[in-house]
């Protein structure tokens, strides 16, 4: 009986088709209707967002720093530094995004990163995710005219997680400090570099934190956005720092997803990207419904200038997601 139980579990774990989810949306004048399907009991969230004049990211490049381990020892002594397997977490980010229907993801090293950032004409709608503490000198040297900054100002979205934004660049084998890196990317020095980690409060963000079921209560290397304009802070907070912040920079944005590397941070990162969040995002409406089989609903979109409908299943334990643009 034990063997049967284990083998049944193995089949369930490895065979597709047991848990099946799907969603559709139908945009009409002043209304968006949707349909969600699940083969098992679950709960769905339909979240209607408005991004105003900003374009959400629709494709993502994940930068895997080839020299991450080589120079880590030089900054390991700094508060809050955590040595991690960035290849693993790059793969985790891609998987978490795929579960949410965001599959336009590719990974690469320095050469590919430089190529992506050189194409400022395609920056709008493109995201770059950096999981390392440094950028290569090919794209960043602490100078305002660096390719990465030009790319962001041209409309790209830079997602930064795990370390101080703009703090370091690597030239060949040596690591260099960019003294004004935070100002270059964010407009002011507002990164939590003191090692504060656990958050005790929630940032409602007009209902976005709850609507997206964010749950990574960790502000390590997060931002204090109190002095910043054109930004969206959400998630959780401690000592003024936010677990998630999206800061407008020119036509683009810098999004900082704080916290130590684990699946909670990956989940929140994936919600931000797959949910199409920008610094201008506001929550228009949301539904949270238990269901099995097929469920339908609709939202009034007359007040939204750039509506985006994000449907996901499972609540905090998300099993499926899909974003639909109006």
């Amino acid at each position: 009986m034990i063997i049967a139980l284990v083998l049944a579990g193995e089949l369930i774990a490895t065979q597709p088709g047991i848990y099946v989810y799907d969603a559709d949306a139908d945009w009409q004048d002043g209304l968006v209707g949707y349909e969600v399907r699940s083969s098992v009991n679950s709960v769905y969230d339909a979240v209607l967002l408005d991004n105003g004049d900003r374009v959400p990211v629709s494709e993502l490049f994940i930068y895997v720093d080839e020299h991450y381990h080589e120079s880590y020892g030089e900054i390991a002594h700094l508060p809050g530094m955590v040595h991690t397997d960035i290849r693993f977490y790059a793969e985790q980010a891609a998987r978490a995004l795929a579960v949410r229907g965001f599959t336009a993801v590719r990974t690469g090293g320095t050469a590919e990163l430089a190529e992506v950032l050189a194409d400022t004409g395609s920056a709008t709608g493109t995201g770059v995710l950096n999981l390392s503490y440094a950028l290569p000198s090919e794209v960043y040297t602490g100078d305002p005219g660096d390719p990465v900054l030009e790319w962001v100002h041209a409309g790209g979205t830079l997602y930064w997680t795990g370390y101080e934004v703009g703090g370091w660049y690597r030239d060949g084998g040596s690591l260099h400090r960019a003294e004004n890196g935070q100002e270059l990317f964010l407009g002011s020095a507002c990164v939590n570099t003191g090692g504060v980690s656990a958050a005790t409060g929630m940032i409602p963000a007009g209902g976005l934190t709850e609507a997206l079921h964010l749950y990574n209560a960790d502000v390590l290397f997060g931002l204090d956005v109190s002095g910043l304009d054109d930004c969206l802070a959400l998630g959780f907070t401690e000592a003024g720092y936010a677990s998630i912040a999206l800061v407008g920079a020119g036509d683009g944005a810098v999004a900082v997803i704080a916290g130590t590397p684990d699946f909670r941070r990956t989940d929140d990162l994936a919600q931000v990207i797959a949910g199409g969040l920008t610094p201008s995002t506001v929550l228009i409406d949301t539904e949270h419904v238990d269901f099995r089989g097929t469920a339908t609903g609709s939202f009034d979109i007359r007040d939204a200038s750039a509506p985006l409908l994000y449907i996901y299943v499972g609540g905090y334990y998300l099993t499926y997601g899909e974003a639909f643009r109006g």
Partner: protein
Amino acid sequence: MAEPRPSGGGPLRRAVDAVLGVRHPLLLIAVIGLIVRLAVMPLIGAYDSDYWAVIVRNLQAGEGLYGLEGYYYTPVWGYILGALSLIQTSLLGIGELGTLVLEALQLPAFSDSMSSDGTAQLLAAFFPMTAMATDLAFNFSLNIMLFAFDIAAAYLVYRLLAEITGDRRKATAGFALVLLCPLIILTSSVDGMFDTVCVVMMLLGIMLLRRGDTFLAGAMISLAVLTKFFPLFICPLLIAYIISRYRGTGEVVKHVLLASAGFALVALVLLLPQILEGDVTVCFRFLTDRISSVDKISLMQIGGVVRILVYAALVPLSLAFSYLIARRGSAEADSLLLKGCLMIFVAMMLFPSPARYLVFTVPFLVFFLAAGDRRLRTGWILISAGAVLFVVAGCTALLTNMAVHAGMPPLEAMMAAAGSMYAGGLGAIPFFTVYVSAAAVQYLGLLAVLRAEWGDTLRHRLSTIARRRTG
């Protein structure tokens, strides 16, 4: 047949009458065990149940056990959760696996190693918490499945005692001492952990080996090892047992090969998905860590090294027992095998371990205690008392799930109690006092077993050495 008792009084009285009306001793003990577990079930801790929900989530998302992060063990427990999850969603109608408890974020036990508050760091290390409260039906269905494994573990000890001693009364006592052992109850019903599942597989392996079904025995031991690696250390004993039992029959090699084939086949079937994906190492992620604070040599890192040294020291102990088993006749082999298992697991736990790991010692300890070795009584009592103290230490936080989903106790009251128990600085003293006492009591329990088993021998050796020196 028993006379039906006159029914009267309230529902409690009728329930007591119903229990007392059960005549078969095993059934009576099982009913008592069930009642105790139902009573403590609401205490199921949020920390591990959150992880189980994450694993179920990953399976339901089509990511298998090792696609999305969250499962750090070899596959067996994940597969069991997979089978259970289908029942939970299809039959029990569980939709949302859990929710975030904002109030719980206030508790300093959420602080991690990054915290500047040393007490908070210690709390996080000793009593990690999550702000997620899993669904009660999810928790209780898990509890009930684990209860079945508790019963199975107790019954297997019963059968071993009945077969080896031939004394049903001793066997029944063994059944009770396992099923009603607070540590077993704590592990399955409060921790929601699967150590008893592994123990059942290991005991089944031993039972099958005794019956001469070496292929299935190997298969079952493989299941046990792929559930939790501890039983790996008793494998040499099992091979020695085969040698002892089949020596002179010319079948030693055949049975060793059969057991090995059973072991290998199950391992192959269970690891096949990862073999096909070309990366079996993901199943052994618990041996490595994907993150580390390399700038600090932490207590945890030092502990990890010491743990490896302690486990390495178990190899000669395991080989020594194997030598004894293989040398002695099959009449003594049963007792030596079980004694070897007991001492290996006791020695393994000498490196301070989570309370639930001690579950591996309980069936063997109970076997010899119920068989008549009263010197082991102190060990059983202390290990059990320590388990009760662990529940007391964690009682307030353990009620998170009930407070959130059932409103009992009120969440505010629970958080206030938890705050006073786990608050940083002096406020943490009640928690640490009880928690450290619990660990110390259990450790004394292990030492009591060691003293009972090896104390006389050691004393004798020492006095012999002393006599030689003076003489």
